C-alpha cells in the first residue's frame, strides 16, 4: 500500500514496529545458520553465545508485543492498520519459535561427536538449512515490502523442504536396517531434520500472515 496516513507519525510508528520485526528475523536467521554450523563442528563457547542470543530473541518478541499494544491503544487502528498492528505479534511469535529450534539444534550438537554425521546426511541437512535461509530472507523481505507474490513463492518452496525432510527419513530408515551407521547419530539427524521442517512451517505461517495483512484473508483456513 503506497498511500500514506495524514498523520505521518502513525506511519512512523508502524514502520518502527516493522523494522523491529525485520531485525528480529535477521537475528533469528543468523541463529539458525550458526546452529547448523554447530552440528557439523560443535564449539562449546559458540553454543553458549547462541543460547545467550536466544534470550535476546525472546526479549525482542516481548518488546514487539508491547509496541504493538501501545500502538493499538493510542491510535485505535482500523481495518488494514489494525492488521498491520496485530500481525507483528503473531510473526514475532513464529520467529521466536524458529529461534527455539535453532537453539535446540545447537544443543543437540553438544551430544554428538565432531564429524559424527555421515556425509550423505550432512549434505541433505545443509540443503534444507540453505533453503530455509533463503526462505527466511524472502519472507522478511515480503513482509517489509508487502510483496504478496514473494510470500506465495515462499509457501511454494516449503514443498521442497518437506521433500528433503522425507528423504532424510527414508535414508535413515535404510541406514538403520543396514546397521552400518551409529543409531544414536541417526536418531539425532532425524530429530534435527524434523526441527528444520518445523522451521519451514513457521516460515510458511509468517508468509500467510503477510498475505493476511494485505488481503485480510486467513489462508490457514483455506489452504
Amino acid at each position, binding site marked *: 500500500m503506497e498511500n500514506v*496516513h*495524514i498523520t505521518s507519525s502513525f506511519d512512523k510508528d508502524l514502520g518502527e514496529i516493522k523494522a523491529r520485526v525485520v531485525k528480529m528475523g535477521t537475528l533469528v536467521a543468523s541463529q539458525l545458520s550458526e546452529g547448523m554450523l554447530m552440528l557439523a563442528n560443535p564449539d562449546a563457547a559458540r553454543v553458549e553465545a547462541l543460547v545467550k542470543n536466544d534470550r535476546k530473541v525472546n526479549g525482542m518478541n516481548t518488546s514487539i508485543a508491547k509496541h504493538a499494544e501501545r500502538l493499538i491503544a493510542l491510535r485505535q487502528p482500523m481495518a*488494514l492498520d489494525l492488521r498491520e498492528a496485530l500481525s507483528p505479534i503473531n510473526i514475532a511469535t513464529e520467529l521466536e519459535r524458529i529461534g527455539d529450534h535453532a537453539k535446540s539444534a545447537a544443543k543437540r550438537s553438544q551430544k554428538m561427536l565432531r564429524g559424527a554425521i555421515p556425509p550423505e546426511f550432512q549434505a541433505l541437512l545443509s540443503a534444507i538449512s540453505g533453503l530455509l535461509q533463503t526462505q527466511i530472507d524472502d519472507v522478511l523481505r515480503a513482509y517489509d515490502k508487502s510483496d504478496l507474490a514473494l510470500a506465495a513463492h515462499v509457501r511454494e518452496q516449503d514443498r521442497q523442504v518437506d521433500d528433503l525432510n522425507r528423504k532424510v527419513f527414508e535414508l535413515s530408515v535404510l541406514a538403520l536396517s543396514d546397521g552400518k551407521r551409529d543409531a544414536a547419530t541417526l536418531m539425532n539427524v532425524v530429530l534435527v531434520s524434523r526441527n528444520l521442517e518445523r522451521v519451514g512451517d513457521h516460515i510458511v505461517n509468517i508468509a500467510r500472515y503477510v498475505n493476511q495483512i494485505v488481503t485480510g484473508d486467513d489462508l490457514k483456513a483455506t489452504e
Partner: protein
Amino acid sequence: MNSPFLSARNVSIFYGDKQAVFDVDLDIEANKVTALIGPSGCGKSTFLRAINRMNDQISSCRFEGSLKIGGQDIYDKSVNVVALRAQVGMVFQKPNPFPKSIFENVAYGLKIHKLTSSKTELQDRVEWSLKSAGLWDEIADRLNEPGNSLSGGQQQRLCIARTIAVEPKVILMDEPCSALDPIATAVVEELIDNMRKDFTIVIVTHSMQQAARISQQTAFFHLGQLVEFGETKDVFTNPREQRTQNYITGRIG
C-alpha cells in the same frame, strides 16, 4: 434478509445547480441502527434530511428519485409533510429544547398531533417518554423547570424524549453527540442501543469509533456518492472499497 423498511433508489439531491447527492441506492432495515459516515460535505446530512423532508424548507433544494418508507413513496404528492414528520423524527447536532418547561417540551408533539385525549394520558405519555430516554429519574421532581436549565447531555436526552413521545417509526440523528462530553456521549449511545428494539435509527456521525460502536450497518458517503454499504463489522475490519479503507484509516488517497 428481511425486506428493507426504508428504501432509497436513484436518489439525487440538488441545491440549485449544484448536485450534492449522486444517484444513491440504499436499503435500511427496520429496528437496526444504520450509520452514515463520510468526510464533511459528502452529502450524508443532505441525504438524512431528505428522509423527513426537512430539505423542503430550503427553496433551492430539489429531490430526484424515490424514497420509500414502509412501501410509501414519501415524496408523493399525496403525502402530507406534517404527518410524515410525526412518523420520522429528528434529533439535531446541537441540543435545541424549546424555551419552555421540560414537561411542555415533551408534550408539544403530543399536543399538536392530538395524540392524547386527556390530561392524565398526556402526563403518562410524557412520563413514559422521559423514562425511555433515561431522563426520568434525574428530573422527575422538576418537570416545570425550563428545558435549557439542564446540562448538555440531559438536554440532548430531552430532545430524544421529545422525539420518542410521538412514537415515530424512524428516528434520524444528525451527529447527536458531537456537542457532548464523553460520559454524556456514552449515556446517549447506550440509550440509542436500547431504542433499537422499538425504532429504526439512522445516525450521521463524524466519529468512526461511534459508528463502529453503535451501528449494525454502515454506509460510507464520499463526494455525494454512496461508496460502500454493509455490515458494520465488515466495513471497519475489511472494507471492499479502497476509498472506504482510506477514510477509515485516515489515509490520503
